[in-house]
């Protein structure tokens, strides 16, 4: 406990040393739950475990390691998207273009591979292209003071329109490298396995955690979300950081598009419609405040897993129609927001 108090970045918990240990523990838990920083993430973690346990009790075969790993396998692209979105939302912005950019990078990859380009050229090219798109959006937001909502909306229209211009029908991918990356299962022992996409997604998460918590850039991201004006007065590189988060989001969207093509092995202009909403929902469920300043990448990953576990339960239930997914996600968003409100309001 004292060690926690000594750490400079931890919030000072109003725990008096004279309290009896049980009450002190209670106070610590209450403080953690009601802190705007940790509370929502803890609630999400508890909820994820609860839903998983409920699923395990209700359905035979649910409570297995592979069901959990499949959450990662099926949602690896969404995890990457949510990581990029977390950066943007932490600065108080929003990126509506990610779904369209996922579709666009899938389309470009599919059509270039079809004409015989090598994957070792295509993938870097895609990542550069989507990063440049992010850079343009960031410059539009920062230099021309266009609201993030509108600037990324324009980018969404642009990316979706370009998808149709590449092709109006689905293009399948037969490139051996892509096919092998899509079909490889990496055994983890005991009948468990994951795909290369999961490893890529986890690497992205690890890098994002490191950048946000251990670099000057990461601290500036939090500072901008907490108050752009104060950040400027402190002499932080606000302009550069604000543009860079959109570049990061663009890069993550491009990478997510590549992972998505590993998953589907095709490019189709209508894929990933509404994925930006899933990504935003995951970030919000993961406890990041939309006004910026509070939140964790790992929270967003938890958010993606919660969305995934709901989908898995609906699949296991069998009788529920697919549209129930959307209603559940909506209801879950509601529960979370109310919980966040109640928890943070009780803190005086």
């Amino acid at each position, binding site marked *: 406990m004292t060690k926690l108090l000594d750490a400079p970045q931890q919030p000072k918990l109003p725990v008096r040393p004279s309290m009896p240990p049980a009450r002190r523990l209670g106070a610590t838990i209450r403080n953690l739950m009601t802190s705007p920083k940790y509370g929502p993430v803890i609630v999400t973690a508890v909820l994820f475990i609860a839903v998983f346990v409920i699923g395990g009790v209700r359905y035979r075969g649910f409570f297995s390691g592979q069901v959990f790993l499949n959450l990662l396998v099926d949602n690896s692209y969404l995890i990457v998207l949510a990581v990029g979105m977390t950066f943007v939302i932490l600065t108080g912005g*929003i990126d509506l273009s990610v779904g369209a950019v996922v579709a666009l990078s899938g389309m470009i990859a599919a059509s270039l591979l079809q004409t015989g380009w090598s994957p070792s050229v295509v993938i870097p090219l895609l990542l550069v292209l989507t990063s440049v798109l992010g850079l343009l959006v960031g410059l*539009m937001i920062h*230099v*021309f*003071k*266009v*609201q993030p*909502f*509108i*600037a990324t*909306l*324009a*980018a*969404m*229209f*642009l990316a*979706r*329109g*370009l998808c*149709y*211009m590449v092709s*109006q029908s689905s293009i399948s991918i037969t490139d051996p490298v892509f096919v092998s990356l899509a079909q490889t299962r990496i055994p983890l022992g005991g009948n468990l396995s994951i795909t290369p996409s999961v490893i890529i997604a986890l690497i992205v998460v690890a890098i994002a955690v490191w950048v946000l918590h251990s670099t000057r850039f990461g601290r500036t991201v939090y500072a901008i979300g907490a108050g752009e004006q104060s950040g400027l007065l402190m002499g932080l590189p606000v302009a550069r950081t604000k543009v860079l988060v959109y570049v990061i989001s663009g890069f993550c969207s491009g990478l997510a598009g590549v992972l998505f093509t590993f998953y589907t092995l095709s490019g189709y202009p209508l894929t990933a419609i509404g994925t930006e*909403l899933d990504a*935003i*929902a995951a970030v*919000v469920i993961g406890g990041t405040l*939309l*006004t910026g300043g509070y939140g964790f990448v790992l929270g967003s990953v938890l958010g993606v897993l919660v969305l995934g576990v709901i989908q898995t339960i609906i699949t296991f239930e069998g009788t529920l*129609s697919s*549209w*129930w*997914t*959307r*209603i559940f*996600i*909506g*209801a879950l*968003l*509601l529960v979370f*927001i*109310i919980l966040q*409100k109640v928890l943070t309001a009780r803190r005086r």
Partner: protein
Amino acid sequence: MSALFARVVAHRLFWPVVMLLVLFLINLIAFPGFFTVTIRDGHLFGSLIDILRNGAPTLIIAIGMTLVIATRGIDLSVGAVCAISGAVACSIILGSSEPGSLSTVAVAVAVALLIALVLGVWNGFLVAVVGVQPIIATLILMTAGRGIAMLITEGQILTVNSPPFKFLGSGFWLGVPIAVLIAAVVFAVAALVTRRTALGMFIESVGINPEASRQAGVRARGLLVVVYTFSAFCAAIAGLILTANTAAADANNTGLFIELDAILAVVIGGTSLAGGRYSLVGTLVGALVIQTLVTTVYTVGIPPIATMVFKAAVVTAVCLLQSPTTAEALRGFRERLAVRAGKGIAAS
């Protein structure tokens, strides 16, 4: 003269109107009969009438959206509300024994509008009473709403054969399309109620500072609920027109992306997403710009698949032209011109 010119350029509707005129000009060059309006079978007929008629649903939603945005809010759920109202109306008409009778259609429309009012109150409750950020509060209904619409239509496209209902979407009265008349009535009501009373000023004051307005005696909460309810009501009207036009309720595609078009119309019209100031005339111009753009794509012969790229270009252009950075650069340019002209006079 130059002072007048400067004032005209500085007007916030200058660039949107210029954009509209440029689009008209492009149309006129591509299709010389663009401005001709003829009377055929007692109906007005021509490209301009088409623009008005097809743009009516977007305009109606944009009017509601303008008031929401003026309170520093946003309503993402309008597309879902469109789908729900269409689904409700169609399922009532299908379920009745006399789908063609006027009373059935009246009941269907009334119930659809009533449900929309409930949805609007729900949005308003979340924003005003619970205190959720508007973008998240309406994101909940946006995500869940299409699921609810699917639930009502049981996942099918409901086709109705009811002349009075069809009349709502494609009928004429005194030669004018019904949809245009409805849009005109909504516009007139919104303009009269908010601009001829103090309501508009209250809305703007809540957008500037809700707490200060509350202390000045403005009932911010009630006002917010009313504004969100009005927005949902507008969305339901638009949804009914859209559904009646095709005589089919499609829970997935009715009003898809219409929230984005409506927000764009509002922003092109010079209403800031930061709230506190709005222009209904601007919204009218914005909605016309968007619809004319779509029409232009068809008349000029650009493949319709490129519409979205084109839209992105126009949105970007208008946003950049309206940006304070551009205004400053233009002012600097004019001043330099004036200095040069002054030197010229001195030299002669």
